[in-house]
């Protein structure tokens, strides 16, 4: 989804008011309970939070010129991969097998067989329309962040089609933007 994302796709940057900042903090706290004690460090109440609006209804939450979360069209907020690498346990994880890695790294969505084959791990509790971290077989760090299209149980039973949408992956446009000028 961030395949071609560059500085020029940004249409507006606004510092948000405190009420909006509180709302964003609250929805992030709800989505990622593991992040609660850290929220004060990552999204301090006092420091200016900037929301960057980009094409395709994409919003980036930026603090101190570092993008931390993003969301599409008021969907759930998802952390950037850089943030996820620092705190890997905040999200549920799916693992894809080795053969899928190179496709995911060029932005492909994750098909069910990649998760159900040996080498793939599914976390059974995951429902559809949830953000998940995608790990790779044999690697320690997250490969991508996805949004499930089917629940884990469906993926196992139906085993066809797109299981998880690939929202943000290593070395995509958003990864390359460590800081915004």
């Amino acid at each position, binding site marked *: 989804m961030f395949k071609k994302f560059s*500085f020029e796709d940004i249409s507006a940057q606004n510092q948000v008011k405190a009420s909006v900042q509180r709302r964003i903090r609250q929805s992030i706290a709800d989505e990622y309970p593991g992040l*609660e004690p850290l929220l004060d460090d990552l999204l301090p109440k006092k420091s200016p939070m900037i929301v960057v609006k980009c094409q395709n209804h994409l919003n980036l939450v930026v603090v101190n010129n570092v993008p931390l979360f993003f969301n599409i069209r008021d969907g759930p907020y998802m952390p950037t991969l850089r943030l996820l690498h620092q705190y*890997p346990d905040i999200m549920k994880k799916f693992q894809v097998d080795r053969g899928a890695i190179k496709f995911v*790294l060029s932005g492909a969505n994750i098909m069910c067989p990649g998760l159900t084959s040996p080498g793939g791990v599914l976390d059974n509790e995951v429902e559809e329309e949830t953000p998940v971290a995608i790990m790779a077989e044999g690697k320690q760090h997250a490969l991508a962040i996805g949004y499930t299209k089917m629940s884990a149980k469906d993926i196992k039973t139906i085993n066809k089609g797109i299981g998880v949408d690939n929202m943000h992956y290593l070395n995509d446009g958003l990864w390359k933007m*460590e800081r915004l000028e």
Partner: protein
Amino acid sequence: MAAEKPAPVRVLYCGVCGLPAEYCEFGHDFERCKPWLRAHAPGVYPEDLLASSSSGGVAGDKDVDKVGERLQGVGISAADGPSSAGDASGSKQGEVKRLPGGKIKKKDKQEVVIEKIVRNKRKCVTVVKGLELFGVKLSDASKKLGKKFATGASVVKGPTEKEQIDVQGDISYDIVEFITDTWPDVPESAIFFIEDGRKVAAS
């Protein structure tokens, strides 16, 4: 739930491709990563995988040659890596600067792009982008263009800091010659027309 703060994990990102060290094999150029990996992240890849400069990865031809030369010398010093990597990338004209860590840098491809936009059915506007990359002052350029072609010309701001010159009318043909005459720094080969894909100006 847990009241203690999870501590942030410090991830080692490869200096060459910007990915976490274990993903270098899927990066742009594994061959360049190998000496970096040897120096900074031993143990991520087994030695025999690093030592063989075979075409397992995505190495380009000239990189494989350079890597062969480099690997002949024992001892991977950090000084060696960047300098020969610098050669390999410097030789390609107009290649995107790839900074270690994958930071984005404004793509400085030195080229002038000429585009024709239809304004009414008969009238169009020729847009010239990229002159400033050759050290040309856009306000002077637009004045000269307007005078030469006896039409209106103005400097327009694009969606971001990029600026372009709009010249009324269709002057795409003559403009190539004019640019190369007035500003000898601009080679004909660096001018491109937009025609569903770029075409080199020299024709």
